[in-house]
């Protein structure tokens, strides 16, 4: 423990730290550590103070830290103990082999953050060692989207409070059948929103935290869906206090969405095709809502959904640029899902019927015809939207039309 030069021994005038009454149970080690850090290795620090435990606690602390206590007596009468600073700084040793985890800004994202960076902040000085944390989406080409930081900032700024954003006490009266249709549509929306909540939540847990803006965006997206679940549930229960029905076919369709394990394909099915179609559906509810509460909740959810679709399209467009084989895989995912649902009877028929009644608003032949026309127009709009977004991902028009048609029986 020697060999380093003495800048002042217990016999000579060296620096003295006065702890006054501060004890090691109250943070004295912080002052001692700071004082020693200012000295050269091997230099001696005198420590003064009047805590009765001082010399013994200091000795135990020094042993743990690798510093050496020197025996007295000390010429300075205030000094109760002297410490020789350890020869090699352990913190320097700890920093040996440390590396920067990229740099903090979005332009500091690296191509493949190693697993042992784990949850370290981007740009942090990461000590070597530490356990590998298996985030399987850890490739910049797969995880990252340049749009993510901007979409996240937008999403964070656009959060709304379900308690105050909707006037739950707004007066309205609906015929029983129309109210029932609203309840059925809301019940259907809730199971879709719950699926849309689970998927980004699951996927975000697989993304390396180095791509933090992607995680943040997905977290806010999941929070958006949590609010959608709340407001649609609340509208369903507003008058009758009962939920509608949940069809086996509808749940089979959602289960096939949950079953997609691939990060990019899952966002393709959920955001580009599913939430893309939802934009049209929520727009329809905004237009034909028979009451102000239904209109308001549909409008609020639609704003959020537009962001979810934008992320999905941006992510897939970014991927398609880098991976020419992606189109084939996207097509395969749509076909697999279609095949899985081929034998599902009456998929979403009850929802389409409820939408007709909701848009009709009354039980007259003219009203039902009007509602039916509106729903037919909705299905056309959904198809147009899907084809448009598929074209943005680089699919030729005929293939986009074909894939959109395979999606038709599912909303989400």
């Amino acid at each position: 423990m020697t060999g380093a030069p003495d800048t002042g021994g217990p016999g000579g005038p060296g620096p003295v730290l006065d702890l006054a009454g501060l004890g090691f149970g109250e943070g004295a080690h912080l002052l001692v550590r700071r004082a020693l850090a200012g000295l050269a290795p091997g230099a001696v620090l005198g420590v003064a103070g009047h805590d009765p435990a001082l010399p013994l606690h200091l000795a135990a602390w020094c042993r743990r830290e690798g510093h050496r206590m020197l025996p007295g007596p000390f010429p300075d009468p205030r000094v109760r103990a002297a410490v020789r600073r350890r020869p090699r700084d352990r913190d320097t040793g700890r920093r040996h082999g440390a590396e920067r985890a990229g740099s903090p800004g979005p332009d500091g994202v690296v191509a493949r953050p190693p697993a042992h960076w784990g949850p370290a902040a981007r740009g942090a000085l990461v000590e070597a060692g530490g356990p590998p944390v298996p985030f399987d989406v850890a490739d910049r080409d797969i995880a990252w989207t340049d749009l993510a930081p901007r979409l996240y900032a937008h999403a964070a700024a656009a959060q709304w409070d379900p308690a105050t954003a909707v006037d739950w006490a707004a007066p309205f009266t609906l015929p029983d059948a129309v109210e029932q249709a609203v309840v059925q549509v809301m019940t259907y929306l809730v199971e879709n929103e719950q699926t849309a909540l689970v998927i980004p939540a699951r996927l975000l847990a697989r993304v390396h935290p180095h791509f933090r803006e992607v995680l943040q965006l997905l977290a806010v997206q999941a929070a958006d869906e949590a609010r959608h679940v709340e407001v649609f549930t609340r509208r369903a229960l507003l008058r009758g206090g009962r939920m509608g029905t949940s069809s086996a076919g509808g749940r089979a369709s959602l289960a096939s969405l949950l079953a997609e394990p691939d990060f990019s394909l899952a966002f393709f099915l959920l955001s580009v095709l599913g939430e893309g179609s939802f934009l049209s559906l929520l727009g329809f509810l905004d237009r034909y809502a028979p009451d102000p509460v239904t209109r308001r909740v549909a409008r609020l959810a639609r704003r959020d959904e537009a962001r979810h679709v934008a992320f999905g399209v941006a992510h897939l467009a970014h991927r398609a640029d880098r991976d020419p084989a992606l189109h084939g895989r996207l097509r395969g995912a749509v076909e697999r899902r279609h095949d899985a649902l081929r034998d599902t009877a009456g998929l979403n028929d009850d929802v389409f019927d409820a939408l007709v009644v909701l848009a009709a608003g009354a039980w007259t032949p003219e009203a039902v015809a009007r509602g039916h026309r509106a729903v037919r127009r909705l299905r056309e709009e959904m198809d147009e939207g899907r084809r448009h977004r598929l074209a943005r991902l680089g699919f030729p028009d005929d293939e986009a039309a074909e894939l959109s048609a395979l999606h038709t029986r599912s909303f989400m």
Partner: protein
Amino acid sequence: MTGMTRMTRMTGTTEPLLLGAVAYDPKVVTIWTGFRSWLTARGLPFDFVLYAHYERQAEDLAAGRLHAAWHSPLAWVRSQRLAAAQGTPLRPLVMRDTDRDLRSVIVVRADARHRRPADLKGETVATGAVDSPQSTLLPLARLREHGLRPGEDFRVLRHDTGVGLHGDHIGGERDAARALMSGEAAAACLSDASWLLFAQDGTLPPGATRPLDRTGPYDHCVLAVGHAADPDLADGLGRLLRSMDHADPEVRHLLDLEGLTAWLPGRTGGFAALAAAVTEAGHYDERGRITAPEYAP
């Protein structure tokens, strides 16, 4: 390096060096599994077994069923007596830098009337487990030096947590500190490291205790090599352990877990006070047999 080359060549044919360690905490598995991979990757045939307590480990080392043992200071004292009785060699190979020159303290509440050890006459003194060097054997020996006979001049309130672990389980010391704060005891016997820990983790409120007395410096754990060990392998183990560098991330977390920054050569001078305390307390006899009453690991 030549020694290491020789060991590498011998790996296929040599019986591995077998070390015993006591499983006083689950981290012991992590530590010795990590050390084992590190040592074998460097050509040392090395294996380990875990024990439930130090007494069987000391007996197996003496019987030659182990080549080496990661020993408490009390286990060292017993191994020394067992080895001397059967005329076999025993050597201290390495120790942690943090195991040298510990002290134990006898602390009282800051507002207590006690000023000198003699003031504890007729009082209750809290200690750790019956086999804890730092919080029972050494501080009670210190009080004997002041003419206070444990159990006669003062009452001993023992906290027998982890008997057979030689005080490695800190629970007994923590209970002793709590007995002091609750007023059940007038004084508590602790290692200086535990006293610091309890002050820092809030077991003892800031400024609530002060030292009444302290022991002289003593050493703690040591890696003991018994008569059955191949001397070349044992030397190889010592050399490799001492080459472990805290700057190497592969071993740093093991060293941090085991609580050291560097391995130092073993030495025996720091166990003399404990050997004397063991004799006074009648914990082991001169041939290393267990003689302590109420001691059943």
